[in-house]
């Protein structure tokens, strides 16, 4: 097993490796994120005395060969649910985030929040494009998206606090603005 910080430390080298494989920055980022997820899912199999970069780069190469080169979408190949369970809820909790839960949670969001999540997270729309489509400033896109993510996470994992790292650094009025 390895510490998550150690994996983060390898991201730079893994990104370069992904770029060499895919020859494309966007695809490299997809490959990198899929590799990170897979590595976290399988971290119990990592042997401490071995090299983490070698291990993760092997995962990346296997992902690239088995799926990416065939131009399949990563999202359909790799179920993120186990990762969500592990990272967001902790191993002792029995709750299981599945598509039904996501569906119900999305229904509970406001239409504006559903819309911005779907446009940016699902469709991969750029903030500027969403701004033009929705006829709102880019800053509003960013703040609306942030609030939508906050509310969705609260609905998906109500027993786990949203891991917003910024609130401790901000003033009271800024905190209120963010979580409003």
């Amino acid at each position, binding site marked *: 097993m390895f510490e*998550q*910080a150690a994996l*983060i*430390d390898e*991201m*730079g080298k893994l990104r370069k490796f992904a770029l060499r494989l895919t020859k494309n920055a*966007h695809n490299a*980022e997809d490959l990198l*994120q899929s590799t*990170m*997820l897979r590595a*976290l899912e399988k971290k119990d199999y990592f042997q401490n005395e071995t090299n983490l970069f070698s291990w993760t780069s092997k995962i990346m190469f296997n992902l690239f060969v088995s799926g990416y080169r065939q131009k399949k*979408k990563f*999202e*359909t190949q790799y*179920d*993120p*649910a186990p*990762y*969500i369970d592990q*990272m*967001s809820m902790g191993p002792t909790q029995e709750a299981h*985030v599945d*598509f039904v839960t*996501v*569906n119900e949670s*999305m*229904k509970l969001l406001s*239409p*504006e929040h*559903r*819309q911005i*999540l*779907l*446009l*940016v*997270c*699902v*469709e991969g729309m*750029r*903030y500027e494009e969403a701004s033009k*489509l929705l006829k709102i400033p880019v800053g509003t896109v*960013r703040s609306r*998206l*942030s609030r939508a*993510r906050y509310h*969705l*996470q609260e609905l*998906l994992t109500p027993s786990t606090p*949203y*891991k*917003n*790292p*910024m609130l*401790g*650094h901000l003033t009271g009025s800024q905190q209120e603005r*963010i979580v409003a």
Partner: protein
Amino acid sequence: MLPPIITEFDVQALVDSHLTWEEEKRVLQAIRTDPALHAYYLQIVAQKKLLVAWWKEQATENKTAKSTSHEAGVLLLAGMQ
């Protein structure tokens, strides 16, 4: 001069691939050194992956969404109740 504070918007922009290479390096450095930022980054990545997988599931189950364009499907689903 103090280094600029990395905000949740910076982390989200990283996950949404909206940063330049230089900005990305700055945010990643902060993620490496700040456990709270690290946890937040992982949470946002996981949430985004889950949403994408859920949407694909929806698209296969919902003929209406499947038969419309992506953008129209998004706007249609945004109004669901």
